[in-house]
C-alpha cells in the first residue's frame, strides 16, 4: 500500500459557521459543482452523515463513479471544527479533512488534507492523485466562494430559512430538508424516516 497525502490552505471572508453550513449542505453539490451527478443520503444525525454520490473525473464525464461517503463533524479544543470525509471509490480508500478556524470575525482559515490509500496498479501513479486533489480543491473552492459570501450576506440580514430558523443562531446539524428533496429519496433513508 502507498499512502499519498496532499495538504492545502485557504482563507475566506466568511464565518466558520457559514463554511460549515456550506460544507454540510449536501443539496447544493449537484447544482453547483461540476462532476457531481447524484447524492443519496442514507443516514445523518447531528454529527455524521452517510451517503452515496455519483461523481465523474474531469475529462471522463461519461463514466460516473459511485462513491460511498461517511462524513463526521468534530469540534476541536482550539475552537476549530474538522469535517472528515471517509470515502471509497474504485476500490481506493480516501480520507479528506477540512479544518475550519475563524481567525478573526467573519474570516476563516481552512486547512485541507487529502489522503489516498493506494493499492494495486494505483500504487504506481501517486502523482496523479496529488494532481487530482489540487485540481479538485481549486475547482470546488472557487465554485463555492459565491455561495459562502452570499450565505454570509443573508446571515447578516438576519435571514430566516424556510423552517423559520434564523441563520444567525448557533449552527446545528443536520440541516433541515423537505421530504421531497432529491437527496432524501434513497429507500433506506425513507425507511428510517
Amino acid at each position, binding site marked *: 500500500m502507498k499512502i499519498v497525502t496532499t495538504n492545502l490552505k485557504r482563507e475566506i471572508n466568511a464565518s466558520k459557521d457559514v463554511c460549515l*453550513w456550506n460544507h454540510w*449542505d449536501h*443539496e*447544493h453539490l449537484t*447544482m*453547483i459543482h461540476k462532476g457531481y451527478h447524484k447524492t443519496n443520503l442514507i443516514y445523518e444525525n447531528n454529527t455524521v452523515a452517510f451517503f452515496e454520490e455519483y461523481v465523474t473525473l474531469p475529462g471522463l464525464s461519461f463514466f460516473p463513479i459511485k462513491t460511498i461517503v461517511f462524513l463526521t463533524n468534530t469540534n476541536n479544543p482550539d475552537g476549530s471544527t474538522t469535517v472528515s470525509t471517509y470515502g471509497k471509490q474504485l476500490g481506493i480508500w480516501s480520507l479528506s479533512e477540512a479544518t475550519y478556524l475563524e481567525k478573526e470575525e467573519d474570516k476563516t482559515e481552512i486547512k485541507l488534507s487529502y489522503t489516498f490509500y493506494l493499492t494495486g496498479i494505483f500504487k504506481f501513479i501517486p502523482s496523479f492523485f496529488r494532481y487530482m486533489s489540487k485540481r479538485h480543491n481549486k475547482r470546488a473552492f472557487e465554485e463555492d466562494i459565491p*455561495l459562502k459570501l*452570499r*450565505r454570509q*450576506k*443573508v446571515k447578516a*440580514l438576519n*435571514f430566516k*430559512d*424556510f423552517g423559520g430558523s434564523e*441563520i444567525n443562531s448557533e449552527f446545528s446539524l443536520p440541516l433541515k430538508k423537505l421530504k*421531497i*428533496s*432529491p437527496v432524501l429519496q434513497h429507500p433506506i433513508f425513507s425507511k428510517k424516516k
Partner: protein
Amino acid sequence: MLTKDIKICNFDEISEYENIPLWIDELQDEIILLRNSSNNIKIFSSICPHFGGEICMKNNNLICKWHGWTFSSENGDFLGYINQDRIIKSSKFALKEYNYVLENDVLLIKNENCNN
C-alpha cells in the same frame, strides 16, 4: 413598512433590468424584475426562502441556483425542485412578490403594498 415609493427604473429601461438581481436598501431585499410567460412585468424577491440562494429565470419559472427550488413566475408559489416530475404547488414557501405602479413612465414599488 416603506415610507416612500421606490424608483426601480424608467419604463424604457426595463429590458436592461430584466432578470438581473438588484439589491434595494429600502427593502433590505434583493429583487428580480422579469416578464413572465403572459408577458406581464413582475417583481419578486430574489432571495430564496429555502437557504437564501440566488433566484434566476429559467424556462418561464424562477429557479434557485443553489438547490433547484422552483417557483411560479405568475405568483411566486413554490412548485418543487427543478427537473422533478411532481409539482407541489404551495404558497407556504412562496417568493415575496412586490407590487408596482408605472407613474410618469417610472416603475415604482409602492409603499405598504408588498405581498406575502
